[in-house]
C-alpha cells in the first residue's frame, strides 16, 4: 500500500526492539470483548485508476453538471473562480499544516489569516473579524448565543422570518437544550423584516436579520440598528452573499453590532454546500465575548513583526466549559482562499463585479415582470429576487432544465404562502442569452 512505508523487514526489526513478536502483542490492554470480530466489510483497496473509474460512476449520476446554468443561489452561489486561487490554496505548506500553535513555523498561515480578518472587517464594516466559523448558519447561531452572553440576564432573542430557512433551523437546533427562547419576526409586504413588535421592554438580548435576506431583499439595516439598540438589544446582521457589500453599504457601517454570514461566494466552490466559510465580525467592545480563533500582530525577540493566535483565554482549550464556544477546527484554508479572492479582485474589481451582478439580476427581474411575472417584493435587491407566475411555472422550468437551465427555486416548501413563487439568482456567470431564453419561455 503506497501510503504505508514499512517493509516487512523493518516491521520485524521494530518489533524486536519493542519486544513483541506480532501485531497482536501491541494491544495487550484491549480486552477481548472490546475487539473487532472479523474483517470490516468495506470495499477496496482500489488502485488510483480504479478509484477514478468508481468516482466517475458516481459523478455520472449527477443530472445537473457543471454545464448547467443554475439560476439558484439561496446560500450557495456560482461565481467565477480565478485559476490562481485553487492553484495557490493547494500549496501543501498551507493545506497540510495544522492549526498554527507553533507560530514561528506557521507565519504563512498566521499572516494569511490576519489578512483575511482585516479584509473581512473592512468588507463587513466591523472593527474586528475572527478566523472563521463553520458556515453562515452556525455563525448566526453563535452570534445569537453571544448576544445572550453580553445581555447577561436576558433570555430571549428575535429572529427574522426572512432569514434563510436552513439557518433558522440551525439556530433552533443550537437553542434546543438551552433555557433561551427564540421569537420569530414577520416580514412586511415589501420583503423587509417587520420590527414593529419590538418594544422598549428590553427583553431581547439580540435581534437577527439577514441582508440581503433570503428573498434577496436588502434590509434597512441602519433603521433596524437604531430600533434594536433603542430596545437595549444588539443587532446581528447576517448574510449569505457577501459580494453585495461591494455595492451596498456594509452592515457594520450602518450600526450592526455583530455581522456574520456565509463567505462561499469568495473563491470557494459550491461543492454541495460545503466546506464553505462562516464569516464573523463585531464591534471592538464585544471582542472578549466573541467565539472562534483570532490572530493578532506582535513582535519577535528582535522586534520584527510577526503573528500569533491570541486572546485564546476565550477558547475551549483554556476556558473549557466556560469558553465562548466549543469551536476548535474552523474553516482554515477557506479563509486563505477568500482572502486570495478578495486580494485578486481588489477594491476596484469588487465594485465592478458587484455592479455586474446587480445589473444582470435587474435585467432578468425587469424582463420577467414585462413578460407577465409578478414581482413579489418591491424593495431593492442585489443578485436574487422573487417572482410569481399566474400559471404553473413548473412545466416551463422542466423545459428549461432540458436545455441545461435551472430556472429558479420554488418557495412553497419553505414558505407555504409562496407556492408557485420562485427565487431567482443571477451572477456574472450567466450570459444575457440564457436570461433571454428564460424570459422567452415565460412568455409562451
Amino acid at each position, binding site marked *: 500500500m503506497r501510503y504505508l512505508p514499512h517493509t516487512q523487514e523493518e516491521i520485524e526489526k521494530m518489533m524486536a526492539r519493542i519486544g513483541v513478536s506480532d501485531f497482536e502483542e501491541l494491544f495487550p490492554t484491549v480486552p477481548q470483548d*472490546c475487539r473487532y470480530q472479523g474483517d470490516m466489510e*468495506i470495499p477496496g483497496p482500489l488502485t488510483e485508476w480504479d478509484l477514478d473509474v468508481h468516482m466517475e460512476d458516481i459523478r455520472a449520476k449527477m443530472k445537473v453538471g457543471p454545464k448547467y446554468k443554475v439560476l*439558484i443561489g439561496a446560500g450557495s452561489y456560482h461565481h467565477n473562480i480565478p485559476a490562481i486561487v485553487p492553484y495557490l490554496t493547494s500549496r501543501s505548506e498551507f493545506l497540510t499544516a495544522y492549526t498554527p500553535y507553533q507560530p514561528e513555523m506557521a507565519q504563512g498561515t498566521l499572516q494569511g489569516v490576519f489578512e483575511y480578518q482585516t479584509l473581512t472587517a473592512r468588507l463587513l464594516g466591523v472593527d474586528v473579524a475572527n478566523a472563521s466559523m*463553520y458556515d453562515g448558519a452556525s455563525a448566526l447561531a453563535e452570534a445569537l448565543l453571544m448576544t445572550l452572553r453580553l445581555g447577561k440576564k436576558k433570555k430571549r432573542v428575535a429572529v427574522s422570518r426572512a432569514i434563510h430557512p436552513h439557518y433558522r433551523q440551525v439556530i433552533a437546533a443550537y437553542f434546543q437544550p438551552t433555557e433561551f427562547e427564540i421569537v420569530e419576526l414577520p416580514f412586511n409586504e415589501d420583503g423587509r423584516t417587520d420590527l414593529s413588535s419590538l418594544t422598549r421592554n428590553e427583553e431581547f438580548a439580540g435581534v437577527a436579520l439577514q441582508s440581503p435576506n433570503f428573498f434577496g431583499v436588502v434590509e434597512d439595516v441602519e433603521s433596524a440598528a437604531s430600533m434594536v439598540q433603542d430596545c437595549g438589544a444588539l443587532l446581528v446582521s447576517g448574510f449569505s452573499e457577501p459580494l453585495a457589500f461591494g455595492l451596498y453599504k456594509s452592515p457594520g457601517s450602518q450600526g450592526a453590532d455583530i455581522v456574520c454570514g456565509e463567505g462561499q461566494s469568495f473563491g470557494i466552490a459550491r461543492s454541495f454546500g460545503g*466546506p464553505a466559510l462562516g464569516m464573523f465580525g463585531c464591534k471592538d467592545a464585544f471582542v472578549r465575548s466573541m467565539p472562534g480563533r483570532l490572530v493578532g500582530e506582535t513582535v519577535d525577540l528582535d522586534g520584527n513583526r510577526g503573528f500569533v493566535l491570541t486572546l485564546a483565554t476565550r477558547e475551549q482549550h483554556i476556558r473549557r466549559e466556560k*469558553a465562548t464556544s466549543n469551536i476548535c477546527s474552523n*474553516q482554515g484554508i477557506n479563509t486563505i482562499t477568500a482572502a486570495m479572492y478578495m486580494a485578486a*479582485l481588489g477594491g476596484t474589481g469588487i465594485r465592478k463585479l458587484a455592479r455586474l451582478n446587480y*445589473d444582470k439580476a435587474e435585467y432578468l427581474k425587469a424582463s420577467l415582470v414585462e413578460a407577465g411575472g409578478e414581482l413579489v417584493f418591491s424593495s431593492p435587491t442585489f443578485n436574487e429576487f422573487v417572482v410569481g407566475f399566474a400559471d404553473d411555472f413548473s412545466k416551463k422550468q422542466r423545459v428549461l432544465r432540458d436545455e441545461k437551465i435551472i430556472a429558479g427555486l420554488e418557495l412553497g416548501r419553505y414558505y407555504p404562502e409562496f407556492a408557485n413563487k420562485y427565487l431567482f439568482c443571477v451572477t456574472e456567470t450567466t450570459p444575457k442569452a440564457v436570461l433571454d431564453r428564460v424570459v422567452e419561455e415565460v412568455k409562451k
Partner: protein
Amino acid sequence: MKDAPGTSGLILEEPLLWEKGKKGRNGMSVSASDVPAAALPEDLVGDGPDFPDLSEVDVVRHYTRLSQWNFGVDTGTYPLGSCTMKYNPKVNEKQAATPVIAAAHPMLDDELCQGTLELIYKLEKHLAIITGMDHVSAQPAAGAHGELAGMLIIDAYHRSRNSKRTKILMPDTAHGTNPASAALCGYKPVKIESGKRGILEVEDIRQLMDEETAGIMITNPNTLGLFEENIREIAAIVHEKGGLVYADGANMNAIMGIVDLKKCGVDVLHLNLHKTFSTPHGGGGPGAGPVCVVSELEKFLPYPRISFDGSEYSRDYNRPESIGRIHAFHGNFGVLVRAYSYILTMGAENLRMASQLAVLNACYLKVQLKDYLHLAYNRPCMHEVVFSDKRQLEHKITTLDIAKRLMDCGYHPPTIYFPLVVSGAIMIEPTESECLDDLDRFVAVVRRITMEAMEQPELLTNAPQRFKVKRLDETRAARQPCLCG
C-alpha cells in the same frame, strides 16, 4: 546538527497585502456587462470595501512567499499528539476538485443530485462498519461540531424519557472541546481524576454516576495514549443509572479494525475525518466530524437523513425526533469526498494495518526515547506516547525550549503542555506515515537535544533561529490586541 533535516534557506520578506499594490491594478478578470446598466437605490449604495488593488503576479508571489514560511505534513515529520498528522493523499484532492463535485448545488431536488447523495450514504455506511456503530450522520463540520451533535442527541434522548439530567462525567484528560460542548447543552462537567495508571477506574465511576448525570464523555484511547481498558464495566455502570456513553473518536487512528466501539458500550461517537481519514488540516480546517450512534438513538440524528430505497437516494426531512439541522447544507461535503476516496483506496486490510503501524511507530519511539525523556506513564501505549520535561527541568530547560529546538532541527514539535494532568507534557504521535529511517532520524535528534540541554542549553533557550521570526511576544499580542491591520 548534521543528522537533522533542518538547515537554513533563503526566506523572502513579504509585506501585508495592503502595504503593496497600486490603485488601478487588477488580479482577476471581470467581464464587460452584456446588459444595460440599471438604476441604483442610491440611499443604500456604499463606497465598497477598502481593498488594495493588486496584479495577478502580486497575488501569486504574495501567497507563494507566505507558504514558504509554513511547515506541513508534506514538508516533514509532524508528530503532533492527538492530531494525527498523517499523509494527506493527493488523489483525494483530485476527486474533491472534479468539476461535477465542485459545481454541485445543495438546494437542488434529490433526482438531480443522486451522485452526491450516494456518496454521503455510502460513506456513512462505511464509517458505521469501521467503528462498529449502527448509524452515522456526516453532517457535523468538525470534531467539536460532532461533539455538539452528540450532546444534543444525548439531551434529546433524556428529554424523550422525561428525564432531567444536569451533569456529565468528564475525565481530567479530556480535550477542552468536551466540556465546552457539554456546556452548550447545559450539562455541568463533573471531573474524574485520572487514576495512578492514567486510565479511568471503575470504582470512581461507580461513586460519581447517579441519576442526575446524563452520561460520560470518554476519549479512547485517551489523551495519554492509553486504552481505557475498563470501558465495558464503566459503560455498564453508566447504563444502569440511565446514562449514555459518549466517545470522542479523536484517537480512532489507533483502533481501526481492532476495537469495536459498540461492543465497548459506546452509544454515541464522533470521528475526525481530518485526523483518522487523511483529509488535510488546512492550517486549522475545514474538518468533518461525523456522529455515529447505536440503533436506539438513530431517530435523533440530524436531518436531512440520506436514505436509499434500492433505486433512488433521497433526503428525509420527516424526522420528528431529530435534533434538527446543524449545518446550512450537508456538512463539509468536499471533506467527505476525500475521506470516502481514502477509505476505498485503503480497503479494510490496509485501514487495520494503518492502525497497527501507527501503534508500532509510537511504541518504537517510546522504547527509543524513554531513557532520554521522562515517560509520564510506563504502560503499553497505543498510537501516541506522552513524555515530560521532568529531567530537563533540572537544567532549567522546559518543554517549550525542547519544542523550539526541534523546529531548528527540521521537525514540527509534538503537542506540548497537554494533557493537563502531565506537567510539561510532550505528546508524540508519529502516525503510520513515518518510515523507520525517519523515526530513527527523529530519535537521534531528540536524544541529541537532551544532551544539548545539559551541555549547550542556549541552543534550546534561544531557539528557533532558522525561521523568519524568532520567539514571538504573545504577552504583547494579548495585552494590546492588534487583530486588524
